[in-house]
């Protein structure tokens, strides 16, 4: 069984985002900010490793990342958690600096190429969305491009012996169970928060991860290999008009007792 897991390097979820004035009204401050793997991608890797551990046949987990050269660190984390090898499509610094530059359409096109290049991929596990763009489109676009079956917002994934996948997905109106029949095409599953809790990479695995292979290939070379047009890959995107911080929350006022509260409410005209 071969599982492909695309992962994304984003600003760490605990960092407070600042608008970068040098990028005009469109950019977020990225320098000197801690970056780590998208939490949903972590969950996807964890699920892939669990599936690999559960299956009786041999399985391989391949992690893919598209981004600047620091993405190798993120790939190493994935390898330390238990993935077998990594593919790094390296972009120049100004492309895929952040979500503004490379958007889901371009990513999905590239991933489609990677899937076809790898061959024999049974399952593509993605995070349901990334925490910087919150688009949530890459998985579904990829399924559309590949014409493959998909199940999104998975909260439970089980693999049948015949190669089918049973997925429980969380929707606003409840839980839905979908069975993806085995086909020649890979199943596309996007992972939601409650699927699992990602493991900590332990020392032995971290040591082993250093020896696992990571293939680095530049974006241009990959595009050429796949026979795509670089312009087309990069230019099909939404244009971000403006990025701004939300107005600061106004502090609440403390009142001493109910009478004071009533007086203040009357003052503001909120109570007759």
């Amino acid at each position, binding site marked *: 069984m071969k599982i492909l897991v695309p992962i994304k390097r984003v600003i*760490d*979820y*605990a*960092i*407070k985002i600042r608008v970068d004035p040098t990028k005009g009204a469109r950019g977020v401050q990225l320098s*000197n*900010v*801690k*970056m*780590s*793997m998208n*939490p949903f991608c*972590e969950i996807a890797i964890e699920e892939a490793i669990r599936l690999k551990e559960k299956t009786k046949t041999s399985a391989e987990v391949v992690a893919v990342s598209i981004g600047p050269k*620091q993405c190798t*660190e993120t790939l190493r*984390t994935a390898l*330390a958690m238990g993935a077998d090898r990594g593919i790094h499509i390296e972009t120049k610094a100004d492309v895929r600096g952040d979500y503004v530059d490379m958007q889901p359409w371009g990513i999905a096109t590239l991933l489609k190429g990677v899937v076809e290049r790898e061959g024999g991929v049974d399952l593509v596990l993605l995070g349901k969305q990334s925490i910087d763009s919150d688009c949530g489109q890459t998985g579904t676009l990829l399924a559309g491009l590949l014409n493959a079956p998909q199940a999104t917002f998975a909260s439970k994934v089980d693999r049948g012996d015949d190669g089918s996948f049973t997925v429980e997905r969380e929707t606003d109106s409840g839980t839905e169970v979908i069975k993806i029949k085995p086909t020649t095409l890979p199943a596309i599953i996007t992972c939601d928060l409650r699927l699992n*809790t990602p*493991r*900590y*990479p*332990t*020392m*032995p695995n*971290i*040591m082993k991860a250093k020896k696992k292979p990571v293939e680095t290939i530049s974006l241009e070379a990959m595009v050429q290999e796949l026979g795509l047009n670089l312009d087309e890959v990069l230019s099909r995107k939404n244009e971000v008009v403006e990025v701004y911080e939300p107005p600061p929350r106004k502090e609440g006022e403390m009142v*001493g*007792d109910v009478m004071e509260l009533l007086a203040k409410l009357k003052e503001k005209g909120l109570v007759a």
Partner: protein
Amino acid sequence: RLRHPYRSAASFSVSGAPPSLGPTSELLIIFMLPSATRSFQRVLFPRASEVVVASRTRTPLMGRDRFVGHRIGWGWILPPVDDHRSRRRRRQLSVIASSSSSSSSSSSSSSRPSFENNKERDGIPRDHRRRCIRECTSRAELRGPNLNDVIHFRSILSRRDGGGIITSLLENDSDSRGARGGGGTRRVQRGLDGTVSRFIPPRAETREYRGGVVPRGGNTGLCGGATPLRDEIVLSLEGMNNIYGLDEHSGILTCDSGVILENLHAYSNERGYLFPLDIGAKGTCQIGGNVSTNAGGQYFFRFGGLHGTVMGLEVVLPDGRVLHLNMDNVDDDGTVQRTKRISTHRKDNTGYDLKHIFIGAEGTIGVVTKVAIACPALPTSKNATLLVCDSYCDVLKVMATAKVELGEILSAMEFMDHNTLKLVQAHGFGGNGDGPRLLRDMLQSDPSKQESDRSRQLYLLVETQGSNSADDASKMDNFLAHLYDSGTIRNGFLAQDSRQMTEMWRIRESCNPSVSRAGCVYKFDVSVPIEDYMTIAREVEGRLFASVKHVDPIVCVWGHVNDGNAHINIVTPGRFETESAIEETIETIVFDEVLKHSGSISAEHGIGQKKNEALGRLKDENIMVIMAQIKALFDPHGIMNPGKYLPKKYQHNMCK
């Protein structure tokens, strides 16, 4: 609980049947034989709200006859019996008595009076002796507050609605829990929106009110330093919580002392600075209290503690004078009045550096009202790793490797032993995140090991903070690779993002609460030579098993190993009541072991009311005398935190 004002309570006389009080009040009169004092105190005080007065008449209980009719401190009554403490006291008293009265016959202190013959002792008539006792212990001078005081204080507090005072005198008291080791109804004065300096002069000037004052911050101290012993006023500073500003260039943050530590962290992080003090209680504790107790915390090693980072203080002395020690004269609405030479600089070598006396003074010589702290820049890259070692030698090697490989980015190294983490796993991890699984992985790092071997495992949490994430990551990588390849660590876990880092710190911060939930905890916070850290723990364990095995004590050790600071906690699982006999045994054993290695009996928790007697026994006489003189210099009437910090015999108002 007595609903009557103090004065009339003091003049109750009990003869036979107790006087008729209201149906909801209780009168509790305690006579105690001094030798049984401690156990009585432990048993009764938690439920007693007040310990009152003595009787004028003979009571068959004790076979004693009359006592003095007003309140004498401690709740138990002199005259003493024949034990070493009271013999010394008697000696002091007899000396005073003989010098102040010419009619005394002998001042021999070595006579051993018998119980029955207390008409005359050392040749001094009984009534005279009693008078001298009254005069010389100025505890008799410190009285509790009454209604007039409440009215007076109300008039000077700026909260006119009367919400600034909580007291039982006015029947609107909140709970009044028995304090740790002491009784007394609490009168809490809260919400001091005005300045403390406005509060204190009226109090000191009106000599009619001379009572104890206990300054209180977040009340998270572990030695009972903010808990009143009897009937002191508790001065709560939580209402003074302005942050005045953070100077961008020098990084000096100025604020009131009632600001909660976590708020200071948030404030400085927003502006790109890191607050240099971080302790487990940061959600509740206030910076004034931290300064007064010289709190340590996990960044002590890196930033040098409060003595190294506090740049200026504003303190209010017990007589009302306000001292600005290397600090801007900041008015309470935030405007800064620059006067003469006072300002907040890092360096100021003009005269004795008085602020260091107030750091760690635990509220005994003044109230800290404003603090100026120098903050370092916020690190952009943080890494944390949990390491599992097989023995303490390995831990020492890890520490040495860290200092070399991690060098300047090493920011915290926390040590935990196996017993502690087992208790954390059993009792306490409230979070349902990764904590439990990480703990499980840590504790069972080597499934092939036997449980008895595993119990020797030791755990380290190493944190780094730096300015360049790529560099730090590679340093951490080299560090871990070095340790793993040389076999110094059995296993290690590296946090990949902030969520995992927070989980690791939560494990460390759960040590204290988990252990408290397992049973009764006897806490010790000691400084020991770093190489003897675990040997001391093992020796304590051995001696405990020899002497108090019946309670199954578990010795848990955790602490800031880089500072040599061990928090030794001995838990008696299943039992939740402190037992004084066991407590004394354990205390003797632990202090004994620590002193054998010339350690300190209180590394960062302070003295409070729990360790002051031990301090008297263990520290050099010359030092204690000078400390007592300093206390007398700042606080001539002994109103600040009476009965705490210094041993009772050095509290200068004992016998002038």
